């Protein structure tokens, strides 16, 4: 736990250092670059709000990946689950005329169900026929992509645009006046609060409940779980369903919070970023929250950096990519740390032992 925090922080530091090298190599000043990058995400309440808003869908997608990971599954279909979840919520939001307090919960439930539907199929295939979830969930991404493409055009098309859905009415979005005002007009919305609640709920399920105990046991060792009488196949299906439901909620935050309609023909990049978020967060719910906010900071700051300097915004993407490499190769960092510790310990030991070893030689001879 503590170890993984150090590794994640190392990955971040290395990523930022590598970014600095990139900036220097392309002839820019790294200090000004970073100062504008961070200013862009933190300079004033509005920018801070935008950072959080950017982070919200990433919290969901990261959590979806992390939850599956903890139970031994690799849900790579988060992008499709986000999209389908968002679509289901949008259909509900556009067709039901209810007060906001009633409509939003229904939309969230619809989103979660949509996401769960998209992930439970790979779950069932895995449990029943041992089809690897990576293959089936990535295929479901494309099934979701085209289903939503067709669904938006046929049922909820925006009359003035061929490529997007109708705007959601005010009552059907997660935007809240008090939050917008609090952050001086930022597009921050209730999605963030929902995300925080889900983080807490997931952490609770994973760490404190018998249900989480079962799911993790199956993730670690299927044979031992079977031996202990745990319904292994049921666990797999549940894990995937919950992971997808979390992603589906993220879709609501994305399409009915940050945005208020769906652009067709785009598979949300947040889905794949979720893998990186989860990796950097060491598959720990709280870690996911923090790493998603950090990614949100980089994403929302890069525009400002681009505007204020002539550093290309791709540098921010490169930093993210490098951080992912470092957290993916966490074993390497761990070894490096251990090697450093050992070298220091050995140096100390040798210094203190030189005398002793020599004297013991004399005895043996």
């Amino acid at each position, binding site marked *: 736990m503590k170890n993984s925090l150090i590794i994640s922080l190392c990955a971040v530091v290395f990523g930022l250092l590598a970014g600095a090298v990139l900036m220097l190599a392309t002839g820019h000043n790294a200090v000004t670059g970073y100062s504008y990058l961070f200013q862009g995400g933190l300079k004033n309440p509005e920018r801070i709000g935008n950072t959080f808003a950017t982070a919200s869908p990433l919290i969901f997608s990261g959590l979806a990946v992390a939850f599956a990971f903890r139970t031994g599954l690799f849900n790579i279909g988060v992008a499709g689950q986000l999209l389908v979840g968002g679509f289901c919520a949008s259909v509900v939001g556009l067709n039901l005329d209810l007060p906001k307090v009633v409509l939003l919960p229904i939309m969230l439930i619809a989103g979660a169900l949509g996401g769960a539907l998209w992930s439970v199929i790979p779950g069932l295939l895995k449990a029943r026929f041992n089809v690897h979830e990576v293959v089936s969930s990535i295929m479901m991404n494309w099934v979701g992509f085209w289903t939503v493409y067709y669904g938006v055009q046929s049922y909820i098309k925006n009359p003035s645009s061929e490529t997007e859905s109708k705007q959601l009415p005010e009552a059907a979005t997660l935007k809240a006046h008090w939050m917008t005002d609090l952050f001086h007009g930022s597009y921050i919305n209730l999605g963030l609060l929902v995300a925080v609640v889900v983080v807490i709920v997931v952490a609770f399920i994973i760490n404190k409940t*018998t249900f989480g105990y079962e799911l993790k046991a199956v993730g*670690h060792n299927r044979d031992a779980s079977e*031996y202990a009488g745990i319904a292994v196949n049921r666990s797999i299906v549940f894990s995937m369903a919950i992971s997808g439901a979390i992603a589906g909620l993220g879709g609501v935050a994305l399409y009915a919070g940050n945005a208020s309609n769906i652009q067709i023909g785009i598979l949300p990049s947040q889905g794949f970023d979720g893998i990186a978020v989860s990796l950097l967060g060491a598959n720990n719910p709280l870690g996911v929250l923090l790493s998603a906010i950090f990614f949100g900071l980089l994403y929302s700051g890069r525009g400002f950096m681009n505007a204020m300097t002539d550093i290309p915004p791709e540098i921010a993407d490169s930093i993210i990519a490098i951080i992912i490499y470092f957290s993916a190769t966490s074993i390497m960092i761990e070894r490096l740390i251990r090697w450093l510790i050992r070298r220091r310990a050995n140096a100390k030991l040798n210094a203190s032992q030189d005398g002793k070893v020599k004297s*013991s030689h004399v005895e*043996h001879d």
Partner: protein
Amino acid sequence: MEYVVEMLNIRKEFTGIVANDDITLRLKRGEIHALLGENGAGKSTLMSILFGMYQADRGTIKVGGKEVRISNPNVANQLGIGMVHQHFKLVENFTVTENIVLGSEPRKWGIVLDVKQAGKKIEELSKRYGLNVDPYAKIEEISVGMQQRVEILKMLYRKAEVLILDEPTGVLTPQEIQELGKIMKNLIAEGKSIILITHKLKEIKEFADRCTVIRRGKTIGTVDVAPTSETAMAEMMVGRQVSFKVQKTESDPGKVVLKVDSLTVRSGRKSLALSNFSLEVRAGEIVGIAGVEGNGQSDLVEAVTGLRKVESGKIYLYGEEITGIPVRDRIESGIGHIPEDRQRRGLVLDYSLGENMVLEVYHKEPFSRRGILQKQAIRKYADHIIESFDVRSGGSAASTVRSLSGGNQQKAIIGREIERNPVLLVAVQPTRGLDVGSIEYIHKRLIEHRDKGNAVLLVSLELDEIMNVSDRIAVVSNGELVGVVRAADTNANEIGLMMAGVRREAGA
């Protein structure tokens, strides 16, 4: 006297644990030197240091009289030290020759693998040491005993002078063990030296010239094997007197607890693993299943515990049919299971010891309430098992099971299963890989469990264990029951014949 390898005053500390504390081992040229010690005494650590996998914190290693620094296994290889690991490191679908040359492939014209030349060399080596290995057979097609010889050949091919054999007999049948003994004699006759890691005293007595005993990381002493009795060595190892004879009273069988009625089990797509098998185990008795490995024992156990589907036939527990019911219901109705493969089946290695202790009962009060785990209750329960079964770990209930030594993992499982007080305890190889002290203790607990009026089904490949602990012995061969005999009026010879499929009437 000339020593090929000397390890002097070796100390190795892992965070919190001193694995080796001032150990000295001297290996003479041309001897078989046994390294004897309990589980977790530090044998593996010591050998890993010699093989270059760990660095000693203190102490010196001399090879051929010269002080050396073995920083990795390649250095060990160059110094002529080779190791045959407990778990073989072979590529299943490669031939013997391909496996042996792996890493130092002989080449023709710089790029083409010259298997022929290598094969010839391996054939020569194999003949010289009486190994009798076909260099062109595939690993997956040869027996475990043969695979071990391939590992030995690998060392010889790399010109090893010192061979470390780590628990080499654990996977072998009695005949194969005898053959291994011959091979070792051939090797030392040719001037090689062998370090034999084991805790089977019988084999030390049979094969070794000298024996170094270590206990809790310290050298207790090095003795000549010939004049030392097994009891004396066991005492050195454990630090107290050990009895080899299992103390038990005559069994007093009661009602039938487990009834297996003409059970047939299919193994995979292949032929029948168990055919038309019937057996009864009564309350207050231990029934041992004897047989050569892979003759249907595991299939019987898996069918009884619910891990394997039954083709036909019925299983009853206290008269109630349990043939088709799920594993959890069988656990609830009172079946305990000490599984054959503790790491694969018995434990979730990444869970803490505490979490593993409630693997089958976590969903019940007091370990959880309304779906919420009660960590305190779990901890208390785990501490109780840890204490009463003497499970040693770095940080008690909180340490991950992965960090425990194999023997302690096994004790934890046995503790967990016995603590639940099951009416039927299915114990498969309960003492595999354990030292005499722990074996004695576990046998005692099994008999205690019987004396409380429970039934025990004991499956073991160790004939001694079966003969000593069981009240009745059922012998299987080829998935069929050869016969059931009372342990009191049979002998190893008769059981051996039955294991080969000879029925009692015909054999006697």
